[in-house]
């Protein structure tokens, strides 16, 4: 796990991003599209209009949280591939609170968010427990729990939350994370306060892991459970704890999406993929809070702007996924570090030969 938490420098990441965009350009050119037109449309639509900017930020918010969820687990030696399921549970809990409880404005939203976070934490508790007590690989349990969450959410929407409808009613306005002043600022976009939660959690993760004694334990257990046990730390408890915090982040992501963006919960035919994107966000961000935020911004911009590429340049959105893949590969294989090294040595060689 040491390598996975390696922090790559800003330049290395930036070069990887540029290389990744180049790969996308090649894919587009090969298929006869115009990359310039496409990328132009992408960035223009993601950033230039207040409305789009607001929507881009909205896209970024859950990515930060699911990225943090994966990153925190990685930091503590766990692979939480179940963010997707914890996300769904977060949505479910938030919609239940949003529909079934009556509370004053701000409090209602807060309670719903916390309920979502806790539901995610609870959903991550089981894999944590099984890992800690029975040594069951968390990858299997979390994959299974993703599917269970999906079906559970669907059956509850259909039977308990509605009278057999496809989607629930809208949550009470008191529970909404949308803030009209903010939306108005962004041309009526669905930007919502979820972004504040996301940034807050990024700071929380930093503070927890690197400033508190619990974080010290979590990291120690992640790096070396045997030495942690020797040092008197409760390895099993820490595994469960870290799965639950990870799940909490994921649950918040789901709750934020529900209370801020959607406002209702619908029957789902499959996963949203925000949880899986979180894996990529975390890895690209080197599993640090700041890195996660930055890579979520990148992913968010590409994802939201990518929708416009098809419209403006007829380029299928999927080329964005190819770009993601290339960026991740380049960062992971440290291709840019390698290139930089090669470039420097060439420059040095030239200087020497001149001397």
């Amino acid at each position, binding site marked *: 796990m*040491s390598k996975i938490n390696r922090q790559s420098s800003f330049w290395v990441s930036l070069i990887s991003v540029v290389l990744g965009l180049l790969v996308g350009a090649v894919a587009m050119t090969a298929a006869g599209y115009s990359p310039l037109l496409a990328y132009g449309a992408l960035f223009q639509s993601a950033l230039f209009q207040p409305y789009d900017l607001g929507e881009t930020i909205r896209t970024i918010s859950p990515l930060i949280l699911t990225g943090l969820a994966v990153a925190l687990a990685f930091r503590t030696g766990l692979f939480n591939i179940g963010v997707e399921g914890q996300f769904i549970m977060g949505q479910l809990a938030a919609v239940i609170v949003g529909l079934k409880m009556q509370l004053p404005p701000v409090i209602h939203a807060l309670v719903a968010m916390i309920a979502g976070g806790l539901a995610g934490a609870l959903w991550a508790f089981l894999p944590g427990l099984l890992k800690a007590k029975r040594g069951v690989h968390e990858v299997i349990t979390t994959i299974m729990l993703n599917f269970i969450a999906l079906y559970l959410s669907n059956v509850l929407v259909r039977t308990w939350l509605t009278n057999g409808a496809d989607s629930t009613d809208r949550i009470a306005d008191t529970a909404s994370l949308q803030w009209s002043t903010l939306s108005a600022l962004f041309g009526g976009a669905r930007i919502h306060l979820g972004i504040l939660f996301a940034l807050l959690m990024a700071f929380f993760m930093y503070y927890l892991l690197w*400033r*508190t*004694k*619990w*974080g*010290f334990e979590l*990291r*120690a257990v992640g*790096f*070396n459970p*045997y*030495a*942690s*046990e*020797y*040092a*008197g*730390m*409760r390895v099993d408890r820490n595994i469960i704890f870290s799965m639950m915090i990870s799940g909490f982040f994921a649950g918040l992501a789901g709750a934020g999406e529900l209370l801020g963006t959607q406002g209702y919960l619908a029957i789902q035919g499959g996963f949203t993929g925000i949880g899986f994107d979180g894996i990529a966000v975390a890895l690209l961000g080197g599993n640090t809070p700041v890195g996660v935020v930055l890579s979520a911004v990148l992913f968010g911009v590409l994802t939201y702007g990518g929708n416009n590429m098809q419209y403006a340049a007829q380029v299928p959105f999927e080329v964005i996924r190819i770009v993601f893949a290339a960026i991740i590969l380049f960062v992971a294989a440290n291709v840019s570090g390698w290139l930089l090294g090669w470039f420097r040595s060439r420059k040095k060689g030239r200087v020497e030969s001149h001397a």
Partner: protein
Amino acid sequence: MNVVEMRGITKRFPGIVANDRIDLTVKQGEIHALLGENGAGKSTLMNILFGLYQPDEGEILIKGKPVRITGPTVANELGIGMVHQHFMLVEPFTVTDNIILGAEPTKGGRVQRRLAEQKVKELSDRYGLRVDPRAKIRDISVGMQQRVEILKTLYRGADILIFDEPTAVLAPQEIDELIEIMRHLVREGKTIIFITHKLKEIMRICDTVTVIRRGKVIRSLPVKETNEKELAALMVGREVSFDIDKEPARTKDPVLEIENLTVEDARGIEAVRGLDLTVHAGEIVGIAGVDGNGQTELIEAITGLRKVRSGSIKLNGRNITNERPRRITESGVGHIPEDRHKRGLVLDFNMGENMVLQTYYQSPFSKGITLQYPEVYQYAQRLIEEFDVRTPDVYTPARALSGGNQQKAIIAREVNRDPDLLIAAQPTRGLDVGAIEFIHRKLVEQRDKGKAVLLISLELDEVLKLSDRIAVIYEGKIVGWVDPKTVTEEQLGLLMAGSTAETGVSD
């Protein structure tokens, strides 16, 4: 005839020249010792000879012919085999599979295990290397694992054998056996390069010794013309004292009292069976025994890392049986673990963090829920200076330190917590004489401060030198107590092998 000639070998690692224009000449049929401090460059040189590393400069001649050894396969073809410092054995494989790996006899695409087992058997009979061809590596003793390593080289027809610190992990009997084996091999016409930190062994069986310091050859000379003191001085670059000035122990109240202790190992087999042991304040009790007789489980039981089946452990009169490690640590137990990489350090944490591994939550390192990093680093800085841990700074990850310095750091941490009972398990394994000297002094210091020290070591010398009393462990029981001042190594060896005590002092 010179079978191996290495000329002007240089190998650089980032930030260090591990081998600096080294010349080494090994004659046919000799046992040639390589001696040097930790990090002197011995393993690096041998890895080059075995083709694992490529030298930056220099040339190698085997049996007079210049060669380029680009990989272990080439080395094998040249008749070079190596028994590595850290065993190169695949744990879940059988002995036979490990030996034939990479050179499997096949028929119709299928590995001929029957035939291979037969070959292994023949080889092991011929050289007196007892192994069970069908046993899994993870189930056999370290000694047998080493014999498997030797068989691996012989199976490939090696006649130049490199042994990198083979005795560091062996019990005395096993060392004797190994030495017999080495003599046997030489009689069969093999040549051996032998790395060890133990001067006694060099004096016992080697013909020539080459001393390396900081990557350079200091001297190469026939063993007959030198002695231990001179070798030690050559190696370290100064005089080394072998004797510890030890005043007689001033024993006080019992600190550790163990009664009728039973502990199971990882596989659920009883490893400690009704063991009794008492350690008093102000004494060092050594535990002598062949590896695998319950030492590990005993330590783990005392420190709370393993559940106790029955019996009791008391510390300063308080029952600590089956308490959590943290409680036990807090009640005054320090522990230098036998596996420093697995238990002792979080290699990816920096030195500062490692120095407070057990105490991070206490004042002044913690305030409320937050860690007080300035205090942590201050404290670590102090320890590092006090114990002469060689590290660039306290922010350096533990992984970057040499084995000796890692060990010093652990000892600094444990001793500084000022525990009433200090458990030292294999505290000097693999370390050079300089480091050993330092650690021995620290242990005696603790004793003199009135602490109880429990020393577990496979190194008989060490046990004899440091202990005030020696308990011999055999099959999970203390089978006898001996007085280190009067007992002979032979008597101790017999006891360790399970023969009932006829001499010895009672508890």
